[in-house]
Structures are given as C-alpha cells and as structure tokens.
C-alpha cells in the first residue's frame, strides 16, 4: 500500500507540476484577473478543473470509493485567514502552487516566498500564533450539526431532511452547466504561450480526481492539498515527526521535479534573482500566506480546488475571502505605484 501511495503520489505530482508550469496555472493571477484584467484564461482553467471535479467527486462518493471530508465553516478563521492569504499572494507574486512551480524553474523570489510560507505556517501550527488559530476556529457554523455544504442546505429549512444523491446531482448539474456555458463563450486565444487554458484545466482536473482516488486508498478522504503536506514535510525535516506524511506529501515531492522538467523542456530554466527589496517583499508575502493558509485551514488548492469541489461552504467562504484579499492588495499596489514621482 505504501508503494502504491508513493508511486501514485510522485507520478501525479510530476504530471501536476508539469501541467502547472506549462499552463502557467497560478490562482493569484486568476483571482486578480477577475477584477483587474480583461484576460481570464487562468480563471477558465480553474473553472474547468471544478467542472471536472464536482461531478467526479460526487460519482466517487456515490460509488462508495471516496467519502469526502468537507472543510468546516469556521467563519472568522476562514475570513481572516483567507484575507491574509490573499494579501500575501500578491506580495509573494503567486499562489502556493504557483510559488512551488516558479521556485522549480529557478525564480529565487519564489523560493524565498516558499521559505516564508513554511516559516509562517510553523508559527501558526507550532508557534506563537497557535492560540490565535484555536480562538478563531471556535466559531463554526454547521447545517444542523452536519458539515456545512451546499448539498445540505435544505436541512436549514427543514429539520431532519437530508438530500439523497438525486438532489445532489441536481445541484452539481446546475453548477457544472453554468460553468460549461461560461467556458463555451470563451474567446479564441490567438497568442498562447505554453498550454491553452483548456489543456491545463483538463490535466489539472484529472490529476485532482486521481488525488481523491489514490488518497482514499490510504484512507485519506481528501483530494489535492498543499498546506497540510508542506507542514508535514516541514515537521519531518525539523523534528522527525512522520505522522502527517501521506499521499499529498508524495504529490508535493513529485510536483517539484515535474515543474522543473517542464521549465527545462520549454527553455524557461534560469536562475533569476530580483532586487533585495523585492526579495524582502516576497519573504513577507510568503509569511502572510503561511499565516493565512494555516488560519483558514487551506490554500488555493485545498480550499480553492478540492474543497470547492465538495461544495463545502467553508471552502467557498475561505476562497471568497482569499479573492477579496487579492483584490484589496492589488488595488493598494496599483494605487501606490500610480502615485506621481516627486
């Protein structure tokens, strides 16, 4: 079983890393583009990933192969954590997965941001901010005591009513249909560097489905995630604590060489060192991302892809807060840089 976990994790991670690099799949860019840009191809990739995963997770659940864990709706932890994570993404110059794949192609700023991300995470999980997280996570909303999910919302209006799979398919179907209609209206890209949005979306989407399946084989009822395996690997490296090592850890270890090979094949491999000021900004952004993701209980992948695919209200809430944080910091940066030089 360990061999299956290690091999499938490394292979999925390699393919995932390759796809992220070739498709330039960065959710910081995606979230920013919604409000600040006319080009939405990465948003389309993300939505395609969701359109693949929402029904796939439901199908795996109905088949009894996966019993998805849904992120709790911790109101304040999700809001504050998501906002801080979004602010940090702008300063770090990328989302968590984006930071991993950019570091793999020699971008020193991303490597520094990644270091900050790990340090920030340790502050929350093992350090001075641990009580803050405990306090913020106290306020949790549930749907009649059940894990909060869009699927369970009817129970709010009718105590004791929990929808069967027919109702779940109806909700999932409406959402997927809406996404598909939006995607079909996408303009044709004339100047594509690397993979197109749909190629990236399909490959990342299939890797995310594989994550659910292979994780379930080792009794981990969750899909792709970055924060938990980052913490687990940091825990193992620092204090030889192996309790959190699982499929997601192998995925993360496979992602780095996958992204490296993709960059190498595309001739995009080079050591890039920004200014000291920019490096400090990356470091600060990384620390904020570590704080935010660990307070919110997940990042752009754990919440933004995996959690949203389960229609967890906690993940939708945290992702919305992250988008808010990205917009806020982007607006601040634009405003600052738009000031006339005196």
């Amino acid at each position: 079983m360990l061999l299956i976990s290690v091999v499938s994790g490394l292979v999925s991670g390699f393919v995932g890393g390759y796809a992220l690099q070739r498709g330039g799949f960065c959710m910081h860019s995606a979230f920013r583009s919604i409000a600040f840009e006319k080009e939405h191809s990465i948003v389309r990739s993300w939505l395609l990933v969701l359109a693949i995963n929402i029904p796939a997770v439901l199908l795996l659940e109905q088949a009894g192969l996966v019993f998805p864990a849904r992120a709790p709706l911790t109101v304040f932890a999700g809001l504050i954590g998501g906002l801080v994570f979004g602010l940090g993404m702008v300063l770090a110059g990328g989302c968590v997965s984006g930071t991993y794949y950019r570091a793999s192609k020699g971008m020193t700023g991303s490597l520094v941001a990644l270091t900050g991300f790990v340090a920030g995470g340790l502050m929350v999980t093992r350090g001075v901010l641990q009580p803050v997280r405990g306090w913020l996570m106290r306020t949790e909303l549930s749907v009649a005591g059940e894990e909060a999910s869009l699927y369970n919302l009817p129970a709010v209006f009718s105590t004791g009513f929990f929808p069967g799979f027919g109702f779940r398919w109806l909700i999932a179907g409406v959402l997927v249909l809406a996404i598909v209609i939006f995607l079909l209206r996408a303009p044709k890209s004339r100047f594509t560097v690397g993979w197109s949005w749909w190629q990236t979306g399909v490959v990342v989407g299939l890797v995310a489905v594989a994550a659910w399946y292979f994780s379930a084989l080792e009794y981990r009822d969750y899909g792709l995630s970055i924060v938990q395996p980052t913490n687990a690997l940091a825990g193992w490296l620092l204090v030889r604590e192996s309790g959190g090592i699982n499929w997601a850890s192998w995925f993360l270890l496979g992602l780095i060489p996958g992204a490296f090979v993709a960059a190498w094949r595309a001739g995009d491999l080079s050591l890039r060192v920004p200014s000291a000021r920019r490096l400090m900004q990356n470091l600060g952004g990384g620390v904020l991302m570590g704080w935010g993701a660990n307070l919110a209980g997940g990042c752009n992948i754990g919440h933004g892809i995996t959690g949203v695919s389960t229609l967890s209200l906690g993940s939708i809430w945290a992702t919305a807060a992250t988008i808010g944080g990205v917009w806020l910091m982007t607006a601040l940066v634009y405003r600052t840089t738009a000031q006339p030089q005196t």
Partner: protein
Amino acid sequence: MSPMRIRALATVVLLTAVAVTAAAQAEWIYAAAGAQYVVVNPGGGDVVHRGELSVADFRPGESGEAVATPDIVPTPGGRYVFFLFPGADRAIVVDAETHQPVWSVSLPAGTRRIVFSSMGTSLWAFTGGSSWIELSHQRGRLTDSGRRAASLGDGAVAFNRRATRVYGNRGNDLVFALTASGEVVQTVTLQGGPYDWQISPNFRFLAGTSARQLVMVDEARGRAVGTIPGAFAGGVFHPSSREFFALSADGNAVLRIDAARGAERSRIQPPLALAAMFAQADGTLHGLAPSATTSAGASGGPALVLDLAGNPRVVPLPAELGRGSAGGAGGVSAAGVTLRPGGGFACF
C-alpha cells in the same frame, strides 16, 4: 558523476528515508487487570512495559479493597490513556510515549463510562440513567468541573468529525442531536436496540451492536443500510471505514461486514473465544481472549490473538494479569492505542 545524477541520487535517498520513517507506526496494546497493566507491541507480541497503576494522589486498592478492572480509554490522538476505575470516580492517566502513569483526574460521582469527543476537546462521563456530563479536556487533564449534557440514553455515545453532532440511543432508535443544545435533528427508527454505537474513522458510518442484531447506518443519508440478526458483543471498524469487524456475543466468531451495504462478507473463526478486538492503523486485527483455553484442552490466563484475519498467533499475557480482578472481560480489559503526532487533519 554528473551534477544531474548526484541530484537524482540525493532525491532517491531522501524519498527512501522519508518512506522508511513514514512506515514506522507507534502502536500499542494496553491491557490491565486490577491495578496491574502491561503494554504489548502488536507487531511482535512482546511486552514492552509492565507496571502498576498508581500515582501520588490515587492508589487503587491502597486500603485493602478489591480493585475493579479499569476501562481503558485512549485520547483520540493516542498520547494519553485513561484508566477509569468504576466506583472510585477517578481515572489514572498514562503517558503513551513513556508508558508511565503521570497523574489522576477526578470524575463526576457515579461515572461508569467515559467517551472522548472526536477531537479530544471534550470528555463525556456517563453517570447512570440517561445522565451524561460534559467536561473540557486538554492534554490528559480535565479543565473544568463539567456540565450536564443532553439525555442520550445508556448506549455508547459517538461524535461526528467536528463534534457538532452526537449520536445515541432513545429507546430502540438512533438519534442525531446537536452537541451544543441537545436538540434532536434526526431519528433513525430501528428495532432490536438499544445499541452500542461506534462511528467509523471517516465519520460516515455508525455500527450498532446489541444482543439481538447488528445495524449499519449511513450517517450522510440518515438511514440504516443493513441489519444482521444475531447477538453481538461490539466490534471495531477497519481504519479504512470500508469494513466493520463484529464480534459474536460468545466470542467465537468475527463477522467481516461491508460498511456501505451493511452486509456480511465473510466470517473469521478465532483460535480462542474473544472478549474484545482492536485494529492497527494498517488494518491488522487483534483480539483479547480472557482465557487461553483451547479446544485441545490447553488452558491458561488471558491472551492476545494477533493478526486475527491473516495468520492468527496466540500470545499469552503475563501471569500477573492472569490473576485478574473483579469486572472486565474475565478480569482483564484491553485497548489498542495509536499515537498520531502531527497527523491531524486541521489543514488541507
């Protein structure tokens, strides 16, 4: 050697090291009779620690009275193991890293059973009738004097993942109640209860065992998916949650049950009549036999039956446990303990 090959070699070495470390599990079986306890390594069956349950402020049997066999209840993270002495209203806490008793905790008067919430933040004490007291718990210590909780009957209480729901008996039925208010949000109508309830590790299935039948409930759908007639004495979920191992009341059969369908897959014949079972994190099933009496006539004290479903092996427990005491299964109680340092699922 080229730099590329050196990098590849270093990666292989790192991955192998992580794999080897990840494979190592800290798992133990704790067994007790009276104030004596032993810790057994389920892998090899060797006793790694033996000692007496005694701390400065609580020494069971100190004044010469018979010591009842304690119930063994590990915390969800496995770091601490509570030994509850019924009648004494106290539990001795053992640190599962050192296997040493570290302190005792005071429990509400008349406590007969204790149950931890799934995240270990609460300890529920059953004091008889339908009275449950909820106490705050942190790292092996109780941090308040407790408050009366919802009436949930005499069956074992189970919690969902976030401990926002609690499950228990109301007559024959299974009720889903809100932990905070006790308000019942769902009732699953059943026959043949009341049941002893266990929730699967992924919090999806509830297995109820009684003297008349076994029932499997799908928590997400709020309905029973299958029943199996017969007298049962509890059981244990496979760590995958996909299977439940049910122990027949006479201890002579273990039913392997498909959790999603509530149907029997196969039946295991243990070499000794069992009183309890435990599952390791990798799914290996072990049992506790109160008496090592076999059909061949050999007899002895209590024993463990390791790897029940694969290649069963009888490992006699030390003689001091064989002398036993009142209560428990044949005067002995046992529980499996898995230490999960940093293995929490708080972050995705």
